[in-house]
């Protein structure tokens, strides 16, 4: 899951990004509306945490830009210090999916992000499951059957992306775009390495493999 955090308060944006990265998201940060739009045109983000009031181009304008660009754009979570009804209506009318008033509890921000990202998937449960592979996003735990998996943050993020797209062939580029942030070097084999360790951990007790390699195309999570 690739996220963009936009806030002109540099230390707030950095803290939010740090917290979200620890929850296994790939997070980029920018500090004004124009940079956000340039970034959004470049990368297919899954969700944008957008500050409403920024000097120059504000969050509402960025939100409208995202919605003009097409219906499959990222989810938008508006972060704002303004909390009147008119402010909320404005924000939601501009195309925001959710609205969170500053100062917020980071746990709530995390829950809302999970909730927004969940809306795209067919089953609406808080626990992702395909076959006997399960991942609990809120607790950041994963299981194969009854066996708990010890996953790094990146492996967890990768597993979550697989679980969100079961049966789909996911290319290395797509995984790099959605699971790694722009700090990742696209020319390394980091995707291949991480998929490899995740696959090993998933079958460590001799279970049948669930991540298949589709030669020349990418990887696929299959139901067992």
């Amino acid at each position, binding site marked *: 899951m690739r996220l963009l955090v936009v806030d002109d308060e540099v230390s*707030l944006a950095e803290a939010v990004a740090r*917290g979200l990265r620890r929850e296994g998201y790939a997070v980029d940060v920018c500090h004004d509306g124009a940079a956000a739009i340039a970034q959004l045109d470049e990368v297919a983000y899954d969700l944008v945490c957008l500050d409403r009031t920024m000097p120059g181009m504000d969050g509402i304008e960025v939100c409208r830009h995202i919605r003009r660009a097409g219906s499959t754009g990222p989810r938008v979570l508006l972060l704002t210090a303004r909390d009147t009804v008119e402010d909320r209506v404005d924000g939601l009318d501009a195309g925001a999916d959710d609205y969170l008033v500053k100062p917020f509890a*980071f746990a709530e921000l995390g829950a809302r992000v999970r909730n927004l990202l969940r809306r795209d998937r067919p089953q609406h449960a808080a626990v992702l499951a395909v076959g006997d592979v399960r991942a609990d996003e809120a607790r950041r735990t994963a299981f194969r059957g009854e066996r708990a998996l010890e996953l790094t943050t990146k492996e967890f993020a990768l597993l979550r992306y697989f679980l969100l797209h079961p049966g789909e062939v996911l290319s290395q580029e797509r995984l790099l775009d959605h699971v790694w942030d722009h700090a990742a070097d696209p020319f390394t084999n980091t995707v291949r390495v991480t998929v490899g360790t995740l696959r090993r951990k998933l079958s460590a007790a001799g279970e049948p493999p669930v991540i298949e390699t589709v030669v020349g195309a990418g990887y696929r999570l299959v139901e067992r």
Partner: protein
Amino acid sequence: MRRSASIRLRMSLLYSGVVFGLGAILVALVYVGLSRALAGQPVTETQVRTMEGDPSCLQVGGVILCERSVETREVTVVDELKVVEKATNQRALERFRTVAFGGLGGLFVVSLVVGWVLAGRFLAPVGRITGVARSIGETDLSRRIRLEGPDDELKRLADTFDAMLARVEGAFEEQRSFIHEASHELRNPLAVMRTNVEVALADPDASPDELRDALAVAGRSAERMGVLVDDLLTYARRGAPEVGRERVDLGVVVAEAVEGFRAAASARDLRLVAEVTGTVAVAGDAGRLTQALSNLVANAVRLAPPGTMVTVACGRADESGRPAAEGPWAWTTVTDEGPGIDVEEQARVFERFHRVPTGAGDEAVRSGLGLTIVRRIALAHGGSVGLRSTPGAGSTFSIWLPALRGEDVGSPA
């Protein structure tokens, strides 16, 4: 409504009392006059006389009585007629009294009713004003009386009331938007603090450096909130900011403002220079003026690029702003060699909580009220503020104040 009803009752009582009193006086005068007139010259004496040419006959009105021994009869007739006349007069007066008292009673009742109705009509606008005043809650100050009718005392009262409501509504709206903006400004540093602390605490593997960073951010945010709260209090001390009227030398104000920021300026490798020539006297509050100038210097010292110069100056100017030793205006300016301010931003920098998109300075300790406070202080002194800026070449912020003329100098307030 009780107050208006009691006035109505008092007005109708007063009205009917006056009408009744005047009626009573009139009736009394008529009665007295009538009774005097009736007692004064009995009709009998003027109407009974001996007929001319025949002394044996008496003429009473058109009736002629002829008898012998006229002398005695005349006396008898006259006496008898007198008795009758007296009785008639007595009765007439009695009838008059009866009718007059009845009439007065009726007048009292009628005047009471008329008074009640009239007072009600006069007081109807008062009831309307009361009703509107009562219906105005704290949240709906938009209602007005808008009294129709002639331009009389009550209409003027209602109009005055409307004008007062408009002022109150304006002040209330201003207050509300101020609180709204202020809470918004307070939330941002709070959010920075809270998120940083929570994210740092939630990480069990956070290194001491990471924790220290989070604490440093929280500390800066707390400092920023402190400045904001101070400025909010300064700003909220309203009611036409009280300014003293002692004689102030702007040269001293400049020196104080410069002294206060010398350390901050050298920390950022800035040269802070005071340019004062002679005495520039104004009437005002030295503390407030120092605060205003300090706000300007603080901005310059915060934003000017390292290695540049910040100049604080004061002087006098004529009506068109040209330097003039005995001009009517005193000015003090802060000039930096910073990035300057875009033309479209220049008009708005003095607005409350306005944020200039600098791209940097995000972490800076600022409240968004500094320049607004400067403008307030200048206005309270009967002066104004100004800004000249060329993007890329620096900005000059100025405060203009009415100068103390030569003869005023040295006269303490």
